[in-house]
């Protein structure tokens, strides 16, 4: 059973301690907003604001995105380099992102203070919206979740409560979660002693079993929907290039801006290759896609192949070598002439 109120209190007291001692410049966490269904990011700069922090299964977004933004800031000429640390609240899946960022030297370990929350699952916003359709729209903003201990959520809203099985709301990524405990943390909130559960990649295997033309038709159907809003790129904490290849126009543009199948395919294949062996399957790209393209399946396929071919598994150990920054003499290559 998860006591969300208890977690919230622990997060608040830790954030308060760090802010008061000046160990961190600010804390990135979640707050409950009055108008949004799910919790939104909040930046706490002052110890007196820590009561804004919230914890619940509707804390979905991967906050490491904002950590990367902070680490990318450069001092003005003549100023000392930045050394301040940032506090951040992470779920187990987001903690894997931090491991990957440390591996790539994007985030120095000493500049991040991690409040890791051992959580079992987060919810899917679409499923939540369907489940609470009976609650009047004006009263959805302040909903709170309570775990009743029998795999149900009690959703409390202004003027009543609702009981929904956890399984009905669970996000797809949580079904293949490998660990319920953050892989890296300074402070652990909650407890989980479950061992790592290996991912079996059932969804990817299903696609791999199809014939080539079936797969092409599957992707053709999905990728022709893409409107190239680039939300999947913008939300990805590992897509942190200063200048993205898809924005580049000089000396020439790699990818035309028009929405055509050929450009969409190129975009999605190149984006996936840039994340090959790095993606930690936090599922943000899938969540933000307005057209419902199963972007995660491409990423998960490359996670699987990187594991099989190159023995690289992202987001577990900071000591591991990055996928494309290293090589192994014994990498397989039977198909090479």
């Amino acid at each position, binding site marked *: 059973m998860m006591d969300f109120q208890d977690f919230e209190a622990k997060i608040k007291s830790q954030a308060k301690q760090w802010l008061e001692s000046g160990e961190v410049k600010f804390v990135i966490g979640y707050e409950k907003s009055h108008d949004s269904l799910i919790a939104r990011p909040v930046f706490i700069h002052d110890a007196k604001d820590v009561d804004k922090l919230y914890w619940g299964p509707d804390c979905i977004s991967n906050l490491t995105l904002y950590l990367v933004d902070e680490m990318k800031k450069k001092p003005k000429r003549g100023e000392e380099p930045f050394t301040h640390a940032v506090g951040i609240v992470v779920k187990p899946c987001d903690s894997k992102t931090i491991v990957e960022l440390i591996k790539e030297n994007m985030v120095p370990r000493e500049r991040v203070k991690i409040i890791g929350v051992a959580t079992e699952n987060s919810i899917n916003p679409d499923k939540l919206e369907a489940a609470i359709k009976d609650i009047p729209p004006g009263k959805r903003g302040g909903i709170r979740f309570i775990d009743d201990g029998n795999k149900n959520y009690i959703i409390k809203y202004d003027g009543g409560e609702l009981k929904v099985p956890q399984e009905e709301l669970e996000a797809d990524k949580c079904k293949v979660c490998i660990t319920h405990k953050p892989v890296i943390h300074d402070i652990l909130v909650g407890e989980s002693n479950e061992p790592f559960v290996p991912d079996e990649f059932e969804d990817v295997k299903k*696609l*791999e079993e199809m014939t*080539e*033309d*079936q*797969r*092409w*038709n*599957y*992707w*053709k159907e999905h990728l*022709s929907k893409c409107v190239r809003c680039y939300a999947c790129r913008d939300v990805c904490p590992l897509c942190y290039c200063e200048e993205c*290849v898809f924005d580049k126009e000089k000396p020439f543009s*790699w990818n035309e801006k028009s929405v*055509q*199948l*050929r*450009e969409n*395919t*190129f975009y999605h*294949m*190149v984006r*996936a*290759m840039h994340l*090959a*062996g790095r993606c930690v399957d936090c599922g943000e790209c899938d969540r933000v896609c307005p057209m419902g393209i199963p972007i995660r399946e*491409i990423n998960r*396929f*490359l996670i699987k*192949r*990187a594991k099989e*071919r*190159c023995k690289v598994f992202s987001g577990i150990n900071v000591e591991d070598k990055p*996928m*494309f920054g290293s*090589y*192994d*003499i014994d*990498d*397989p*290559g039977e*198909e*090479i*002439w």
Partner: protein
Amino acid sequence: MTEISKTDSEWEPKIIGFLCNWCSYTGADLAGTSRLQYPPNIRIIKVMCSGRVNPQFILKAFQEGADGVLVSGCHPGDCHYIEGNYHAKRKLTLTTDLMEFMGVDPKRFQVSWVSASEGKKFAEVVIKFTAQIKELGPQNKLTGGDV
């Protein structure tokens, strides 16, 4: 330009070859100076190392109408830059996998190791690869022709 169909006997495949400056390009040169015959379907682009070949070069070539793409570099251990071709191996084998997953025939993309003294091997690779692409026919998935 008129559309060319698969049944057209006039159809000749377009193959883009990314060859490394130090081994394969010199190997191709040797094939030429040794007067070895190989199909003229391959259009060669010289790169400094097979590790320079970014997966997006390959996908762009397909998008612009290539029927096959060949990347060739030094044998493992012989790289002029010591380890460029090991990096290439990781990247390019994964690109092949991704093409397969997206439903594009991975046989259209080939990696080979050809040293500067292997003019004969280069000619053989091009002959074999051209025959393979001829069998597969025109590539129209990534060009957007198959809608």
